[in-house]
């Protein structure tokens, strides 16, 4: 009998742990939710962004194509304008990310007159071949990223950046 009795001390400690635990959970839950939320959120309307570039107009010379999308950065939303270097290789359309793999500057096609047929990064003279492969002995240590692309009614759509598949 006496074993089942809850002493005053036990009672207090049970209730306090209970309350404390409840409070802790109350504090933790929103934090966990916030931490996970942005990751779980899928961007609406699919991952592809429609550009104004006609597929038929794409040539074998890389050309800059801008595209704007809504970025959810943690819990801020903003309109981001991004760009891609787009060209045709045979039948295939290639879209490369302009973000230098060294420290993130924007690269330009034939940005250095001394190096035709290459992408050039003005920040520390990084260079890339047309397929995005970094030129050895320049600062970048990897190739330019590529974008997923698809066609929509004759126009180019650009998707997410993926590791370069050409080199």
């Amino acid at each position: 009998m006496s074993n089942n009795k809850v002493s005053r001390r036990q009672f207090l400690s049970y209730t306090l742990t209970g309350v404390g635990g409840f409070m802790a959970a109350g504090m933790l839950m929103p934090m966990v939710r916030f931490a996970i939320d942005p990751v779980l959120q899928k961007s609406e309307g699919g991952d592809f962004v429609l550009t104004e570039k006609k597929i038929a107009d794409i040539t074998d010379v890389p050309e800059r194509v801008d595209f704007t999308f809504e970025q959810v950065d943690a819990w801020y939303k903003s309109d981001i304008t991004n760009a891609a270097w787009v060209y045709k290789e045979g039948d295939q359309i290639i879209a490369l990310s302009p973000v230098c793999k060294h420290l993130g500057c924007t690269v330009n096609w034939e940005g250095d007159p001394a190096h035709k047929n290459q992408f050039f990064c003005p920040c520390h003279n990084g260079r890339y071949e047309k397929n995005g492969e970094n030129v050895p002995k320049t600062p970048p240590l990897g190739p330019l990223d590529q974008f997923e692309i698809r066609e929509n009614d004759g126009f180019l759509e650009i998707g997410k950046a993926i590791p370069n598949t050409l080199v």
Partner: protein
Amino acid sequence: MHWNGKDSAVFQAQKEYIDTAVIPLIVIDGSEHGFGFAASAADYTLSLANLIENQFKGRIVLFPSFSYTTGQDKQSLLEIWKEELLKADFKYIFFITSDREWSTMGDEHDVIWTPSVPLDSMDQKMRNSVLEDQLRQLIPIFAKKWAN
């Protein structure tokens, strides 16, 4: 790079590559006729500065703007900024502004003056293309400084 915690860590690890500071100079004008113009010019300068950051992300740190009022002795304020930034080992310091008063001081102070374009009435696309145009004109100024 931006002036924030995350980028500052990169900066400190890569000082050898990230060697340039960019500071927008923004005039605050409280007078009735100057107010709107100064505000719109600030919008323009800051948008342009952001684009510069995006283009040269791996080489520059874009600082929060340095704002002053019309009556202030901006020259000495500028010197104080420079002194402080040199402590952080920046090799190049650029100020960018569309406040006309700087236009005469020009090169020796590393102040890049660009006339402001009123962006307010433009849609996003127009804005971007105006700013891109400006950026293209600024790239050689940076390149030239870096080259020597």
